[in-house]
């Protein structure tokens, strides 16, 4: 299967992707005698060329560009306010002070309420879990139907769906607000979940369709001869083979939905505002002195979930994307 095939294409552990790619070009150029030797002794250390120094320099700058703000955030969140006022932003905190974190989590003011952003955290969980599950389920079933059940007009339907994926969703906001108001769902949890499912559907359908299009049609035919119906074949034959693409879909949807701001702001209602909106309220609350340490802590807390998802499943993500891409 393709998943196995892609895993063999993965760079060996410990080699950065960039170094690996330029390295394999070298390998092709060196005579096989050399390659044999390096195979028995491990990778030969390479000479530093100008190009290679430039490459590493660029990588280092890029890494710094993304890492420095994160470092500053962590450092600042651990400082007290007087320390922040007086010291440099790169200075290490005098004592590791967790008060800002505790306050951000449980007693920071988001507008009138002062219960911290934990409210937003739980709201986001309650929004993200059903939205992710429902949008993946819908996308998987639709993708399966489009690739195996030759419905009349399937290609047209798919094209329309793709168009939906590329239209900026701001233009849908107002019509959808009106529509949800009319059916009395506006500003409810159900409303925001439905919105996330609708906006997630095109991309979910696309990746599942491409994945299923790569599976042998004979497998589907065999299940048909065995008497499987639409859902039986999906559940018993296709879904068990879909683990890699399910993981990709889950990562995409969890991070997208967790990071969403505007849909949550417009559709969720005051009771269900997600963490991103609450964070904005914390940071922008106007009275008194700006509490940078608290803002930083709240921001890190908000970013923690997507970060965690990437760290835990990054490897799977790359593999699954590759599997999907090759199949497409």
């Amino acid at each position, binding site marked *: *299967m393709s998943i196995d095939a892609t895993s063999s294409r993965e760079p060996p552990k410990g080699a950065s992707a960039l170094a690996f790619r330029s390295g394999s070009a070298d390998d092709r150029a060196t005579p096989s005698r050399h390659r044999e030797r390096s195979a028995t002794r491990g990778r030969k250390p390479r000479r530093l060329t100008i190009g290679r120094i430039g490459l590493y320099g660029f990588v280092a700058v890029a890494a710094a560009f993304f890492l420095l703000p994160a470092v500053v955030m962590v450092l600042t969140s651990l400082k007290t306010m007087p320390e922040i006022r007086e010291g440099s932003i790169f200075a290490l905190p005098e004592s590791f002070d967790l008060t800002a974190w505790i306050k951000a989590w449980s007693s920071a003011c988001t507008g009138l309420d002062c219960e911290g952003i934990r409210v937003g955290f739980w709201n986001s969980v309650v929004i993200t879990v059903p939205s992710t599950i429902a949008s993946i389920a819908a996308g998987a079933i639709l993708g399966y139907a489009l690739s195996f059940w030759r419905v009349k007009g399937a290609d047209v339907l798919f094209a329309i769906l793709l168009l939906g994926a590329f239209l900026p969703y701001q233009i849908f906001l107002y019509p959808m607000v009106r529509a949800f108001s009319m059916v009395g769902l506006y500003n409810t949890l159900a409303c925001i979940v439905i919105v996330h499912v609708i906006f997630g559907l095109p991309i979910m359908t696309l990746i599942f369709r491409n994945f299923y299009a790569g599976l*042998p049609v*004979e*497998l589907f*035919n*065999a*299940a*048909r*001869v*065995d*008497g*499987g119906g639409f859902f*039986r074949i999906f559940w*018993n*034959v296709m879904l*068990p*083979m879909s683990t890699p693409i399910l993981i990709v879909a889950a990562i995409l949807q969890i991070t997208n939905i967790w990071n969403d701001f505007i849909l949550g702001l417009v559709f969720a209602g005051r009771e269900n505002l997600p963490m991103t909106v609450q964070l904005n309220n914390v940071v922008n609350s106007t009275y008194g002195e700006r509490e940078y340490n608290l803002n930083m802590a709240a921001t890190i807390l908000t970013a923690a979930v997507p970060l965690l998802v990437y760290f835990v499943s990054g490897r799977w993500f790359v593999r699954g994307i590759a599997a999907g891409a090759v199949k497409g």
Partner: protein
Amino acid sequence: MIAEATTHSTPRPGAGDHSGKARPGGAMAAGEDSSVSVRDLDIAFGAHKVIAGLDLEISPGEFLVLLGPSGCGKSTLLNAIAGLLDISDGEIWIDGKNVTWAEPKDRGIGMVFQSYALYPRMSVEKNLSFGLRIAGLPKSEIEARVKRVADLLQLDGLMRRRPSELSGGQRQRVAIGRALVRNVDVFLFDEPLSNLDAKLRNELRVEIKKLHQRLGNTMIYVTHDQVEAMTLADRIAVMRGGVIQQLGAPKDIYRRPVNRFVAGFIGSPGMNFFDGALRSGADGPAAELGDVRVPLSRYDFARPPKADGAVVFGIRPEHIGLGEVPEGHFACEGTVDLVEAMGADTIVWTSLAGAPLTIRTDGETEIRPGETIRFSFDPANACVFDTATDLRL
């Protein structure tokens, strides 16, 4: 469709009428004693017609092989019989029922696919029982049937394994088992052995033959391997471009191919062909191949030959002998160009009337390239085709 070329061994009333779409009521009776009956089948993918006006009658217990080059529509025909694709026109009857629009599971067929198509996340046992569980059979019945098939195909030790943990031959046996547990009368095999190495292919071919003798089911077997076709089939249907060129017993197809395509497709190495003309003389008709004249008084003409017509003369490498010339055989001399030793046989390349000629002889031969040899054949074993129509004369 070459209507005259098709030798139906189960002739239907009105079989001559291949163009008529509407069939008189009387023709319905034709398939009654057939196991599978395909009538005037049309299949098109978009504008691309793959099968046009195909008729096929298969008797109960028959082993029918669909043979033909890649892309000729064998799988398409098989899938149509299985109900896996929509047909454009025509009817399909199985066991006396019109199943043209029936679901695959309701047609009473079991199918084995070229790529095995085992469910990768199920154990062998689950693979075998999947269809039975869907059908909602009682547990004891499922167990009994799975056990019977496992015994039959020697799958006992493998029941807990996943398909990825099996060898190619074992996978193929599981795939066959999955068709067998369905307890149906008709099996459809789509190139079941083509993914296996030569040795395993031979072994499984024998197993399939034995299985068929034991179970007595109707079998439709797709292959483009002519050894499989010749050894397994009761009848072979040779296809080209979605049309059945010839339908008949393996021996008939080998001895009396209806046209040049069938003659060239069956046999390895292939039949030798020579362009020439038909001449009538005092001693009867003869084929004139350049400066060589082969008398055809012993040849059994299928239709009265036109004198002086352009013909293609064909003779199989294994029908040409070396050495002593028997009575009535045609003899000629040639220089050996190449000798291919194949173990049991040797293929000798020489020429006749300026065109290359292969001769199949025993493996012990001492012939060397450059030698002049004398070879002979019985004109009764030859095949003469009309150049214009490619049909056998």
